[in-house]
């Protein structure tokens, strides 16, 4: 029981960590061709992502692996129910990664353009798909003891799409602030300004999302039962306000910290509302996959807890250290000291 709750929380933590970290990669990827007005600026944006994007993506693989190990039935259902959506997620992940790795390794305008466009489209598509997938999980999927009754198109319901747009707005603010935080001069200032402008869209979508969640999902039930948890969405909103205030004062580092907190708190707004469900069923609530009916055995959860306690702090330590090594701002036009010539 305790272990199941612990792993439910860790499941949320892993997704939140992934959204927070890859959120800025994806946001910067979406805005890459818009904020980067010339080759030098685009190279600078890529250079802010180069050292860290791969390590960030592993949080997704870990979230997937942990779901598999701790909640096998959830893993099996989520991935097979959302088959085509996940296929597109895979393709987006592939093109995002390849674009970042190969863009600087070829020559000629056609090569550059191909990977620039694929970086932007893949980042946008991945963000949208993740949002749509989570929106549908918040809303509940149509399945019962007989199986799954939805299709790819049924995922594109208004609430799912709204969550998708919320993710796009959230990550693009996160990404713009990252660029603002990590690049010198004109590009950095423009990025922070853009984040401030995008913030309005994010604020509108956030309000719409909270309202729609009340009507279209059961997320509110936990909050009505235990109002103390309202602290999570309240802090998310506070974080959102702080983003605007600090972006307005051109404090990119504080605005980025606030935006990161907003991503985590927004994720947990959903996770708290879901508990104990990991995937609620909208056709038959009894079939819902919960932390209690779909978890692994106590033995496995114990082994996994020990593994997490040993490895996760180490991972966090060296990732923080690598971020510190690359803490300096990138100067537009500066010759990189990497293998990418």
């Amino acid at each position, binding site marked *: 029981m305790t272990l199941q709750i612990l792993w439910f929380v860790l499941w949320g933590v892993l997704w939140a960590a992934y959204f927070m970290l890859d959120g800025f990669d994806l946001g910067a990827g979406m805005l890459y061709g818009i904020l980067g007005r010339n080759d030098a600026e685009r190279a600078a944006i890529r250079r802010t992502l180069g050292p860290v*994007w791969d390590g960030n993506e592993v949080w997704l693989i*870990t979230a997937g692996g942990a779901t598999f190990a701790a909640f096998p039935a959830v893993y099996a259902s989520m991935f*097979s129910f959302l088959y085509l959506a996940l296929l597109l997620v*895979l393709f987006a992940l592939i093109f995002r990664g*390849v674009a970042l790795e190969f863009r600087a390794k070829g020559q000629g305008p056609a090569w550059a353009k191909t990977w620039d466009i694929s970086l932007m489209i893949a980042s946008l598509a991945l963000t949208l798909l993740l949002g749509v997938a989570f929106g549908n999980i918040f809303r509940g999927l149509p399945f019962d003891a007989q199986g799954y009754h939805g299709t790819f198109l049924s995922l594109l319901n208004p609430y799912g799409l709204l969550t998708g747009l919320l993710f796009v707005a959230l990550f693009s603010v996160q990404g713009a602030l990252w660029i603002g935080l990590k690049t010198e001069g004109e590009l950095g200032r423009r990025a922070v300004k853009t984040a401030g402008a995008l913030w309005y869209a994010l604020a509108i979508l956030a309000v719409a999302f909270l309202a729609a969640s009340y009507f279209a999902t059961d997320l509110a039930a936990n909050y009505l039962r235990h109002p103390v948890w309202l602290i999570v969405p309240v802090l998310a909103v506070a974080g959102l306000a702080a983003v605007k205030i600090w972006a307005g004062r051109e404090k990119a580092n504080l605005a980025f910290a606030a935006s990161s907190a907003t991503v985590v708190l927004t994720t947990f707004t959903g996770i708290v509302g879901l508990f104990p469900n990991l995937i609620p069923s909208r056709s038959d609530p009894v079939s819902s996959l919960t932390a209690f009916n779909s978890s692994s055995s106590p033995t496995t959860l114990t082994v996994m807890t020990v*593994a997490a306690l040993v490895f996760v702090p180490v991972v966090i330590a060296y990732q923080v250290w690598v971020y510190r090594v690359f803490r300096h701002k990138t100067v537009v036009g500066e010759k990189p000291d990497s293998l990418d010539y």
Partner: protein
Amino acid sequence: MDVLSLSRLQFAVTALFHFIFVPLTLGLSILVAWMETRYVRTGDEMYLRMTKFWGKLFLINFALGVVTGITMEFQFGMNWAEYSKYVGDIFGAPLAIEATAAFFLESTFIGLWVFGWTKVSKKVHLLAAWLVAFGTNLSALWILLANGWMQNPVGYVLRNGRAEMDDFGALITNGTGWTIFFHTVLSGYVVAAFFVMGVSAYHLLKKNQATLFKVSFRTAALFGLVSAVLLAFTGDQRGIDVAKRQPAKLAAMESLWETKSGAPMPLLQWPDEKNERNSVEALKIPNGLSLLAFHKASAEVKGLKDFPPDERPPVLPTFLSFRIMVGLGALFVLLAFVGWLLSRKDKLETKPLLLRIFLYAIPLPYIATELGWIVAEVGRQPWLVYGLMKTSDGVSRAVSSGQVVVSLLGFTVVYGVLAVVDVFLLTKYARKGPQEASR
């Protein structure tokens, strides 16, 4: 085709494609880290150019290994949901640990390695190279312990309608998993060694930066020779393990139909599955198979007829893949030995024909590793988990054949594009050669 056949085909295609990149990563990460070690120790700038040249080829390959690897994790849930549900309790743990213990390590430090040349000290940079090498090899260990469990399930109990973990220690000390691990990583070292020898041979033929490429060649030849010999040894260990734990696979690998004590080994052989016999069987080595499989001349080897027809793996692909793999394995020992001898005596440039052979030998270890996986996985059929779960019981129920057709076509197109880009970039940078020495 039905969902099952399509999903099997898709898994085969995506796994074999992923495994074009993995073995080179496993071996080249070590070679590059070693080159950088030489640089840090000697301060000789040639080793730096060498590290950067091979490092760049490593990175192109590494990127594709990463992006095609995610597909493998996703597919367990997407196409094999019943399998994931049934065995996730024990099979999921090594996968999750692989991500936490190994993927983070390689992915975080590869970023430091690529972008950190002037950001950290030489020694810290070198440490990053070794951590990448360690991380990639550690990830192989965890995924192969998972595969080892599918070949030889241990440490579980059937409870609550699924296979639940009972003994994690048994899972991580599973002899099958460990022999698969050693055999697989060593095959990767051989791939990398022949890659480095082949590309070096190309530049030696062109008389381009001869010193640098002679040193590269010699390093790779020694690495390749040691690995190829150990590879043969671990292959023998694999054979013994298969004989003991997967007798039907062994029978298919050897196309042995009748159970025999003191089973001979025909050098020329061709299976005739329909008539449950071999259409060709000649040049028999007496007791050869018994000796090979059990290290005992009189040992009894089970024939395929001892298994019901629906529990026999497809014979021809298993048999043929095994034979070719073993033949290639022997060739690698020979070639690596010749290469090592010549480079030691500094006679490489006097043998252009041999250099050309090394250049064209680059694909051979790739072929051998792919064939090895065909032996391992096709030979396991019809089981998904040997003796515990049939492949046909593991496929997703929520997925339609139309969806798998779409995904299979999608993978074919996307992977086709990736293959073209990969070959283009690798050839481009391999041909271009390292930076000229600065004066």
